[in-house]
């Protein structure tokens, strides 16, 4: 691999350094997760509708069934949240974007994703942090990475060593987000998903992303997960890929060259997890 420029070109999105949810936030999803855990343990809980509780019990040994139930339960919570807000709806610009580059839509799309960025809490929680970015943006639920780590640990999706690629996307599905896994995607697949307004999680090698160490270390596979927010093709001579990288302090809406990104992505064989944006544009648009 050739030496190339660093990808740390700052992108002015006007995004604040941190995002605080209002103190009177109406829904506490910790309670939702607690309820789910109690339901799995068979504990009675008056906050869960009896029919949902019964179906969770029936599906306890069937992971796909569990996912459906969890999805239904979280959908109900989201509907409740929407009702409490007066049922407002607002579509994100992303998803309405055509094939021609639209700088306003691009900036809006990047900003909505960049709002969710933070550094990962643990050395091996990049996949969980990346999924949390999407969950927070799409659902508007103030779910934290720590809570997702706990949930993933309880469900067996984050045990000891980290998250395997086979378990990437499970947290998204648990929050009602449809996913498509492509173990060997290419850049056209990525561009298509982004043009549809979806977020994409990709497995990359962080050494290849920074270029210098890719030349100097005998590793050959991906070791990191980042969220791809958009492709900036405003300059045909220098197309850029915008990613939320939870692994480094300046990873918010980071702009890197397409060539650099593809080098890093190729180490996973092109693994991608497409998180399909809900038809209503994502409840996070109401924030």
């Amino acid at each position: 691999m050739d030496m190339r420029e660093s990808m740390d070109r700052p992108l002015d999105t006007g995004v604040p350094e941190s995002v605080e949810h209002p103190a009177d936030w109406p829904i506490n999803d910790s309670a939702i997760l607690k309820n789910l855990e109690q339901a799995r343990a068979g504990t009675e809980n008056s906050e869960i509708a009896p029919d949902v509780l019964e179906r969770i019990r029936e599906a306890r040994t069937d992971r796909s069934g569990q996912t459906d139930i969890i999805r239904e339960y979280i959908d109900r919570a989201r509907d409740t949240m929407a009702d409490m807000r007066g049922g407002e709806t607002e579509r994100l610009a992303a998803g309405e974007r055509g094939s021609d580059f639209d700088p306003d839509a691009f900036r809006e799309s990047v900003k909505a994703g960049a709002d969710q960025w933070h550094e990962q809490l643990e050395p091996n929680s990049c996949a969980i942090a990346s999924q949390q970015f999407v969950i927070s943006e799409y659902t508007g639920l103030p779910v934290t990475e720590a809570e997702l780590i706990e949930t993933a640990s309880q469900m067996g999706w984050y045990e000891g060593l980290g998250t395997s690629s086979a378990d990437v996307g499970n947290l998204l599905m648990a929050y009602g987000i449809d996913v498509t896994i492509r173990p060997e995607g290419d850049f056209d697949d990525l561009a298509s998903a982004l043009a549809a307004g979806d977020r994409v999680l990709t497995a990359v090698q962080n050494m290849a992303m920074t270029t210098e160490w890719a030349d100097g270390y005998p590793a050959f596979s991906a070791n990191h997960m980042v969220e791809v927010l958009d492709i900036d093709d405003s300059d045909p001579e220098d197309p850029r890929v915008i990613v939320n990288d939870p692994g480094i302090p300046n990873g918010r809406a980071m702009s890197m060259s397409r060539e650099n990104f593809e080098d890093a992505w190729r180490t996973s064989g092109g693994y991608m997890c497409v998180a399909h944006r809900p038809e209503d544009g994502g409840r996070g648009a109401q924030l």
Partner: protein
Amino acid sequence: MTLQGLMRDIRQDPVCRAMLPVDMTMLYPAFSVKRGILCAHVLCHRAAVKPEGLEIWPPELRLEFACPRVRPISVVNLKFDGPYTEGTKVLPNRSPEEKARYSAAMRRLAALGDGLLAEWEETGAADVSPYNECLRSVLEPSQWQLLAAFAEP
């Protein structure tokens, strides 16, 4: 089969997909011959890019595959297999001259790997020592120690 092709197949193997966390990387394989079968031994560990260099964790998994058709033999969690030290190490940024030497070693490793696999496919036998010696020169000594028992004659 080339070394790159073999590494691609290892990376795509279902055992790797299920067992290898997305935040852990595989190092280049060492080779051995057991019961007349060519075996690849792969160490997996975490690595993080820091301003001062590359921070590496001790290898946590060792995967073994029969080659050249990649078939899993074993997955060993090194934390439960003998002494294990938790500490990390930072490899300092290298000078351009060091990088040039390293790149030359990696090109030689690729050529030796390609030759090894080609010879094996043609004759069903090959000397793995030259490749392993070259691999030893690009790995950290502590990493090689975990492979030496398998890779040395």
